[in-house]
């Protein structure tokens, strides 16, 4: 990217949420923020979603209590499975990012900065550099906050078409433009001669299939693969265009913001979630990575995330059917899909096709409302922004650390352990949780500690060939 005014990368902000069967509102809301920059405008897409389990206002008090205990058991039992289901994509994304950073030098070359971080870090004094990076981080964070609020406002006033259009344009950008650049750089690194026609064909196919998979229907694995790829692309762009200290500061501030936005009562993400729940809709599933597909014919409520929307950052458990017949709730709109499309999909729920489409069951099947509750079918969702920021941390660690692989490995383990802890908290608290803070904190601590403390130690040990 040569122009600074080029498209801005999107990033998403995510949270972790979980759904429990006794919570019949299986509308899972994901919180995600997406920032996209079109040539002339900046937009920010924020989709907070959270699922709340165990809502206090349930009318099913005593009957459900036993269910709740069983659910807790089940949850903890399948908690390990959920953790593994999230480990694999997070690991894959990080592996892709690290592999690219190590081999393609384009992403470690300094070619300017984004327009969101106007202050340079090539200054004479340390104090100046610190000040510049603080200002950069402040600008970035304020852009994020503005975008989040804009998204909340759009959502509140039901401008679904705008949001949907925004999401489509941003995924177009990612799938075509950024992957074109990536492919070009990989070819340059390996000195592969390639003609424009072949490249055009490849990128076209890649992009179109990606758009279909993410926004519409497609095999689950393919959708997951695409989500991982676009997260990796986004993370690479961040790694390239954010200067050092700015990047670390932004990571730190983002996790604080995530914490605040999701947990504070007046936080924008939380408001978005609550609004979505009042309307019984799912928030934009476009920005969520979902790990399972629900093959439920008679589902009272299905995880809406399974839809083709671009994944966001938020995680939550998908629950298979709810116990209550949710006849009243039409599927929340899919951010712009027309009602007819919704009806069609609802009617098609009978013969379930191989898509993770899961939302429409309730209205379409009033008579046979046997909801087969299958706890095995529960999936987990993580917002794409979480993927992106984890990968940014690990990528930056591998790009700029003196300890090199040791630091990368340490950050990787730290992030995974943070994710484990977050999922554990999710199982305990049963509500939407931010996925960034714990992992990013661990990651940052381990990065700086390993780079400065462990690295000289291991170096000396290796030099003398001592083993600990």
């Amino acid at each position, binding site marked *: 990217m040569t122009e600074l005014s080029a498209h801005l990368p999107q990033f998403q902000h995510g949270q972790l949420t979980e759904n429990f069967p006794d919570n019949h509102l299986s509308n899972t809301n994901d919180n995600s923020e997406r920032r996209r920059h079109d040539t002339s405008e900046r937009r920010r897409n924020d989709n907070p979603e959270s699922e709340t389990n165990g809502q206090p206002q349930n009318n099913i008090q005593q009957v459900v209590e036993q269910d709740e205990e069983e659910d*807790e*058991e089940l949850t*903890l*039992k399948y908690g390990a499975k959920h953790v593994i289901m999230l480990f694999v994509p997070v690991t894959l994304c990080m592996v892709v990012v690290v592999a690219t950073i190590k081999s393609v030098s384009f992403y470690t070359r300094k070619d300017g900065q984004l327009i969101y971080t106007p202050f340079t870090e090539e200054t004479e004094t340390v104090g100046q550099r610190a000040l510049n990076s603080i200002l950069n981080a402040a600008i970035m964070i304020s852009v994020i906050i503005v975008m989040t609020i804009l998204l909340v406002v759009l959502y509140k006033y039901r401008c679904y078409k705008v949001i949907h259009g925004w999401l489509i344009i941003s995924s177009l950008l990612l799938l075509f433009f950024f992957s074109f650049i990536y492919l070009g750089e990989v070819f340059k690194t390996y000195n592969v001669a390639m003609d424009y026609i072949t490249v055009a064909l490849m990128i076209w196919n890649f992009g179109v299939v990606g758009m279909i998979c993410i926004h519409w229907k497609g095999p689950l694995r393919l959708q997951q693969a695409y989500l991982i790829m676009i997260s990796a692309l986004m993370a690479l762009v961040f790694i390239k265009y954010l200067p050092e200290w700015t990047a670390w500061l932004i990571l730190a501030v983002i996790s604080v913001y995530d914490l605040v936005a999701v947990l504070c009562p007046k936080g924008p993400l939380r408001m978005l979630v609550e609004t979505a729940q009042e309307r019984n809709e799912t928030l934009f599933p476009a920005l969520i990575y979902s790990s399972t597909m629900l093959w439920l014919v008679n589902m009272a409520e299905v995880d809406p995330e399974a839809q083709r929307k671009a994944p966001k950052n938020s995680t939550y458990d998908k629950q298979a059917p709810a116990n209550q017949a949710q006849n009243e709730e039409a599927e929340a709109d899919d951010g712009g899909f027309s009602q007819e499309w919704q009806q069609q999909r609802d009617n098609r729920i009978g013969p379930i096709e191989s898509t993770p489409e899961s939302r429409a069951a309730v209205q379409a099947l009033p008579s046979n409302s046997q909801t087969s509750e299958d706890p095995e079918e529960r999936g987990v969702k993580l917002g794409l922004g979480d993927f992106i920021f984890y990968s940014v941390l690990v990528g930056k660690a591998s790009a700029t650390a003196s*300890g*090199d*692989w*040791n630091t990368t*490995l*340490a950050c990787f*383990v*730290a992030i995974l*352990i943070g994710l484990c802890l977050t999922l554990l908290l999710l199982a305990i608290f049963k509500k939407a949780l931010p996925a960034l803070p714990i992992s990013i904190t661990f990651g940052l601590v*381990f990065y700086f*500690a*390993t780079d*400065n*403390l*462990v690295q*000289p*130690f*291991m170096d*000396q*040990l*290796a030099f*003398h*060939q*001592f*083993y*600990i």
Partner: protein
Amino acid sequence: AFFWLVSLLLSSLIWFIAVKATDPRDEPLQKGLLIFGVMFSVLLQETFRFLYYKLLRKAIEGLVALSEDGCSPISIQQMAYVAGLGFGLMSGAFSMINLLADALGPGTVGIHGDSQLYFLTSAFMTMVLIFLHTFWGILFFHGCEHRRWWEITAVVAMHLAVSGSTFCNPLYVGSLVPSYLLMAAAAAWAYLLSGGSAQNLRRFLLCKS
């Protein structure tokens, strides 16, 4: 793996402080400090293994309480194995990965007069350490379970011995041979503790049912 990492972090913090507080040009002192760092790190690793055991104990109690039939889905022996493996893999990864990355690049081993077998011996040493950590995990947890303190002290002593033997590198016979012998002993011990016996082994090798 995480616990091993944290122990490594703390021990390198101590070493770092010690180094910064002393004269960097004093070679024997630096080497002495390094040796001190190694020993301290070994003790810290074993401490963290113990802490991890405590954590897993609590987790097992929780799982048992929640399970339907009163027994946890994963036994303490399995956890011991996994814990030891995690420790070993992390320790091995940290020891070897920079070496491997450098081995991919151009260079000549030992061109400045050091041993030419550097990579080979590093690989073997790392392997033996990974195995040892796994076996030590089993032995340690078994000792904690049955309150046999001598088993725990044996594990710590073995760890110290193995690390200490690496101090005579590059005299590799002094480090590799004892380490492998200790590994064989630990393997046999762990096998017996996990319920194996000579009979089991014979049946397995002869593919009897």
